[in-house]
């Protein structure tokens, strides 16, 4: 198999996985689906970067720009999920803080849904 065919096969696979994770995160928006979406973006982004020599320049730049925006929005949701998770693990009973984080998460989730 040539490296070009290999790159195309890998990128197609990563792209399909990413599309699936976008749909899943849009539907569920739970911590797991948002995390998996971020991982899928990073893996696809790394594939694009690695094989950029073999791809049309514009296509790579456009895809990576769009992915960066989604990644940033998903990152905001993910950080709040982690904060809530660590609060549970620490048995922190500050209701005010928990509510504040939950409200921020709702807003961050809305922003992500608009992009993804």
């Amino acid at each position, binding site marked *: 198999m040539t490296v070009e065919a290999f790159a195309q096969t890998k990128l197609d696979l990563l792209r399909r996985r990413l599309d699936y994770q976008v749909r899943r995160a849009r539907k569920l928006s739970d911590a797991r689906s948002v995390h998996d979406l971020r991982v899928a973006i990073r893996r696809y982004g790394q594939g694009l970067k690695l094989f950029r020599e073999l791809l049309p320049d514009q296509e790579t730049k456009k895809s990576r720009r769009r992915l960066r925006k989604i990644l940033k929005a998903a990152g905001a949701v993910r950080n709040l999920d982690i904060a809530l998770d660590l609060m549970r693990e*620490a048995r922190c009973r500050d209701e005010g803080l928990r509510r504040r984080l939950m409200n921020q998460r709702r807003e961050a989730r809305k922003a992500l849904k608009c992009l993804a």
Partner: protein
Amino acid sequence: MPRLKWRRDAGVAESAAQHLPGLAERFFERAGELFSAGALHELRLEIKRFRYTLELFRELYGPRLGALLEMLRQAQQLLGEMNDCATVARMLDASAPEDFRRFLETRANRKEAEFRALWQKRLGRPGEGSRWAEYLRRYVRRIP
């Protein structure tokens, strides 16, 4: 990560054998520098990029590559958990409970200690980069 010059019509096995050893050598060299400088956040990102790159070529190698990938995954996870604590601590305002802050600090320190132990025992061993470069050069297999 350096921009790799792929030859479109070259076989993927020979291309992997040509490029991956150099990537591995550079990764271990850079990772060692970052570890010594205490730049653990940057080191986490380097590990992630290297791991995702190697995973793309997983089917071209045998189970030993799986062992390297598992080490990288563990290192990335510990550094990620450490980073999570720092991220959450930055999100808290002045009214956040002090015991939660202490919990985050203690957890981050524990994860860092676990990572340093893993580094000393496995990834940071002298000659590790050359060993993996040699493996990636010699043990690549052709796929139809």
